[in-house]
């Protein structure tokens, strides 16, 4: 149920996520050790195009990566295929991407 293009897209999103995860963990450690409050964090992220791009890219990469992975699991576990599987894959991508970007918007807008 995974063709070469979905395979490449999943590897590409993994490549994108790897440095972003490291960056996110580094930011969390910095924020916690520095004792930043929620409002101080928001003060740094709100209005920042850099943080919006950082976490926006992360949210889209996660949504693509997870949707492709779940597509394989759903096909192998429940036997779902064809259009139903394609719609469900897109639905998972839209749900995860929508939630992720909503959260990014909330802290950067």
């Amino acid at each position: 149920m995974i063709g070469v293009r979905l395979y490449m897209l999943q590897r590409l999103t993994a490549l994108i996520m790897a440095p972003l995860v490291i960056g996110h963990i580094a930011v969390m450690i910095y924020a916690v050790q520095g004792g930043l409050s929620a409002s101080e964090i928001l003060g740094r992220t709100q209005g920042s195009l850099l943080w919006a791009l950082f976490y926006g890219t992360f949210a889209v990469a996660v949504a693509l990566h997870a949707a492709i992975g779940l597509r394989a699991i759903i096909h192998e576990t429940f036997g779902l295929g064809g259009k139903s599987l394609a719609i469900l894959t897109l639905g998972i991508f839209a749900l995860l991407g929508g939630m992720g970007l909503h959260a990014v918007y909330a802290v950067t807008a």
Partner: protein
Amino acid sequence: MSDDASLKVSVWRGAEAGSFETFDVPMQESQTVLDLVAWVQQNADPTLAYRYACRVGMCGSCAMMVNGVPRWTCRTHVSKVAKDGTVEIAPLRNLPVIKDLAVDMDPFFDKWTAAGGAFSPTKSRDDTVEPILPETPERREADAAIECINCAVCYAACDVVSVNPDYLGPAALNRAWSLVNDVKDGALDARLTAVSGAGGCHNCHSQQGCVAHCPNELNPTASIAGLKRATVRAALKGRI
């Protein structure tokens, strides 16, 4: 070993629906699992259906599930697999059962063909024979994969095949990889396209059940990984 001793041999009877039937089979020196099946058919129930040919691990036709593990029965000694004097013998997993221990190999070979398993020559009989250097990287890859005799043990061992009926399986993809590395073959892009579909090489989870059970000690997982790399390169270049 005493001739009086016997084994409890449970043999699958029926087709997809069926049950195990247990036979008492006399133990013998250097007895193989195929010997057990032959004894049952020749001495207890002549209607038992099973498949074999060479009896020396060359033809690949006697593969069955022995105590839940896919094996060549002709090359499996009873002494190595019997548990408390019992052996369970079933038809190969992941293939339709025709009767008793004989499975329908059609899906296996259909996928072998669908994965581009047929050699596509680039020369005719009028051309000179192309020299093949054994030490080239391509030939080494082809040689590593080429010893497959299509016994379907890897196909029976593969969990992806069991949950994804479209998946081409380790043997078909291993064959495709041997041809991808064959400089005499002229259907590279067609073959890479054939292994890149919904049931293609990208569905392999690299669990390596095929590697663990291949009686010829081949590594289909490595072949499939090679196909993944080759198809990605071809896709990036717009060839597939």
